[in-house]
């Protein structure tokens, strides 16, 4: 019954921790590293509240063991803003009223960022398909989808001088 020593990279910084082999990455982020922006909604991969990026791909942190983080590169909601500047998605969510209770918001923003990183100009259908693994019970998704569209538009404007 031994804990595991894991070396990893979280939000651009080297990090290490001890975890029990049965602990999920979600538990490690929240309980060991105190990065509580990543939320637990179902603990079986169906709500998306615990979405993090792992080696460039979004995954449900509840379905990853902490031990699997060894050598990985992980991005959480805490790493989305750069310094004091919010990411355009964060701005768009605020301006577009894309959150009500806010508990699904970190998962939506991490997932949406991954979408815009790979597809800067997604259609409404593509946004809806990509985000179908993220449940929101408050908004009916309308303002979330529109805010992703608004962020994409602004990011493209910024990218073209």
């Amino acid at each position: 019954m031994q804990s595991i020593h894991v070396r990893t990279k979280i939000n651009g910084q080297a990090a290490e921790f001890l975890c029990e082999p049965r602990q999920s990455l979600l538990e490690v982020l929240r309980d060991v590293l105190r990065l509580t922006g990543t939320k637990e909604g179902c603990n079986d991969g169906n709500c998306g509240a615990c979405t993090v990026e792992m080696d460039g791909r979004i995954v449900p942190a509840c379905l990853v063991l902490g031990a699997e983080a060894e050598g990985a590169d992980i991005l959480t909601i805490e790493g989305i803003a750069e310094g004091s500047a919010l990411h355009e998605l964060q701005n768009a969510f605020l301006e577009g009223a894309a959150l009500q209770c806010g508990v699904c918001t970190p998962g939506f923003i991490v997932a949406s960022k991954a979408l815009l990183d790979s597809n800067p100009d997604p259609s409404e259908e593509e946004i809806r398909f990509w985000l179908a693994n993220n449940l929101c019970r408050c908004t009916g998704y309308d303002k979330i989808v529109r805010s992703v569209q608004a962020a994409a538009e602004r990011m493209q404007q910024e990218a073209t001088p």
Partner: protein
Amino acid sequence: MHWIDYYRPSTLEACLEAFAEHGASARALAGGTDLLVQMRAGRLANNVVVDVKAVPELNEIRYEPGIGLTLGAAVPCYRIYGDPTVQREYPALIDSVSMIGGTQIQGRASVGGNLCNASPSADAVPPLIALGATCRVASVAGEREIPAEDFCTAPGTNALGEREVLVSLNLPAPSPDSGACYLRFIPRNEMDIAVAGAGVSVRLANGCFDSGRVALAAVAATPLLVPAAGAALSGQPVGRSAIAAAAAAAKAAARPISDMRGTAEYRSNLCEVLTRRALEKAVERAGGTLG
């Protein structure tokens, strides 16, 4: 979750040795989308988890023209649908891996895991059966191959021995004039378990079906190959009447149960509808016309 030990072998040999040592108490971890959920629910008694994602043989996608595709058992869905060769050669496989779970689940879940989990409703399995895939299985004692349609033996049970590991899936190279498709029915549009599914492949020649294979999901204790449906196509002119006959054969072969996802009667109906629609799409992909 009860206490577990975690191993991450980096060679196939070390992986097989781990299973040789721990046998039934060990489970392979690829995406964990079934394994971790079942362990948390107390449905599995294993106390060892062997993470197979560092074993090269379980993580390759390799296509050799004329021979076919070698798909490592642990390759996650997103790598499969992101692979241009698989997109071109195996659209039916793309159909299924892009509908398993949602985006995040597809970042973890693998076709090999879907197969080993042996759920009757597994979306990846009917297209594998329809495409004539074989499963490469290894243990310290050696290797063997199992046809995809024989891999699942009962709900949650597969053909692997205690010390065996599914290494890869081998899909034959598609012949010209062939087409395949997987369709399933779910109440939502994503994030759901198939109420029924149909994976089909056809080969056309001279305006006729040269051959066809039809496999169904969620209508029997295991994913189900329906030889009668294939037989209903062989030699018949490409058209709606042969497809209707195959769809009727699929419906007749289905042995569904009633549960929270649908009644038996409803599922039988879906077999016919989905088989027909999948065959129409497969014909289109094969370059055929329904006339």
